């Protein structure tokens, strides 16, 4: 059974019809990627899953239970975490406190501590800045923090919105290594990326979005070989 399933989702921003009937599913243990042009509705899709945006029609089911009417915080308690677009770190809390907020719904003190260590090994830079308030971090450091914070929730389903944005190339590699690694440990990942090349290399399946609807849905392998994808999203001429 699919861990997450979206059926015919329509989401609006006031009068703007941002998602026009999206249906996707993510199975337990998968890495699925969502690619698409600016304004296609990728972030809106993730926000709809998380409950930050409620769909006007359609259903979102998590483990067979429909969640589209639940408020965001309850969806999080069901094991969904997101590293949102634009980082959204808590600017006046320091790095450690931000990470603690990531583990807000968890109670296992040891597990939290272990995960904190893991984030610090993944991003040594954050360890150096552990007591600095997040608002003064550099853009990339904030991005690391946002990803780390999502990892801290130790979610079943991890939603990542353009994790590579603003990161140095060397770190991009590291991030994707980590994604594969935590996936191997049992976390399901839904990944939105502009860097389609690398996204498709770690994902098992992918969807291509265009102006609010799904244009293509296939295995990562097939998408990588798709003519249109190669031209537009992989930048090959």
């Amino acid at each position, binding site marked *: 059974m699919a861990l997450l399933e979206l059926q015919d989702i329509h989401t609006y921003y006031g009068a703007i019809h941002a998602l026009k009937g999206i249906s996707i599913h993510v199975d337990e243990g998968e890495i699925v990627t969502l690619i*698409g*042009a600016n*304004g296609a509705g990728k972030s809106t899709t993730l926000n709809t899953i998380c409950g930050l945006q409620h769909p006007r029609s359609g259903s979102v089911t998590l483990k067979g239970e429909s969640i589209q009417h639940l408020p965001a915080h309850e969806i999080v308690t069901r094991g969904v975490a997101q590293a949102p677009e634009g980082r959204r770190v808590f600017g006046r809390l320091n790095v450690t406190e931000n990470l603690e907020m990531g583990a807000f719904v968890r109670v296992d003190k040891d597990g939290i501590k272990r995960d904190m260590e893991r984030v610090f090994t993944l991003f040594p*830079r954050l360890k150096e800045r552990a007591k600095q308030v997040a608002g003064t971090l550099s*853009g990339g*450091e904030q991005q690391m923090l946002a990803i780390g914070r999502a990892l801290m929730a130790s979610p079943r389903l991890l939603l990542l919105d353009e994790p590579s944005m603003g990161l*140095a190339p*060397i770190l991009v590699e590291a991030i994707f290594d980590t994604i594969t690694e935590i996936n191997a440990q049992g976390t399901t990942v839904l990944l939105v990326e502009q860097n389609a090349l690398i996204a498709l290399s770690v994902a098992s399946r992918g969807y291509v979005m265009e102006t609010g609807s799904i244009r293509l849905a296939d295995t990562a392998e097939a998408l990588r070989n798709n003519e249109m994808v190669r031209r*537009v*999203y992989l930048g090959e001429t």
Partner: protein
Amino acid sequence: MAILSAHHVTKRFGGLLAVSQFDVEIQENSIHSIIGPNGAGKTTFFNCITGFYRHEEGSILFKGEPLDGLSPDRITRQGIARTYQNIRLFQNMTVIENVLVGGHVHLRTGVFGAVARTRGVMAEEAKALEEARHTLRFVGLAGRGDYMAVNLPYGDQRRLEIGRALQTRPALLLLDEPAAGMNPSETEDLMAFVRRLRDELGLTILLIEHQMRVVMGISEVVTVLDYGEKIAEGTPAQIQRDTKVIEAYLGRRATA
């Protein structure tokens, strides 16, 4: 000739050396990139140039004149414009109004002119509006002028930010990660656009970017910062081969 030169620029935050004894020369009409690991001090250096931060040591000369200690608005009047790493538009203004604000420094109208709306003022406004429309066409936002800036998708917001900066008619344009959040084909467009800025408008461009495709594709000179210090400088080809840069920044796979 160097349009901008920095000598021994140092910026500290508490005990942290964000930029340290940094020297750089930006040649007129060139595309110059600054790269470096996250937190290396690139954005901080931009902030020092534009007067957002005040560096403790060193000096920055623009066209031979020191910029140190000037307020941001006066620096803009000297001919330097910028975009921001986290997009900062005037969100609740329309697209064209954003651009018109960029033209602020080139207009003269004061309170009395605005109220009396003399012929001169009207002409000036009409001209400003025409220029703004032209800029919108130039950055590919024609027809979007009356949208609210917040409602633009991410990529268009970046374009608008550049458009707004262009409207100040700068000699030097600072772009902070303009390609972030763009997909490869959009990035291609951006690169072409930046080249056009240089070729058609004769601007000098200083660029921060993490996408090597952009950096290596369009820049003539690349400067590499790490922990606030310059560790390398050269043509893209030289930089790509520099082991120190590979070690600190590029990683093995990128070069492969």
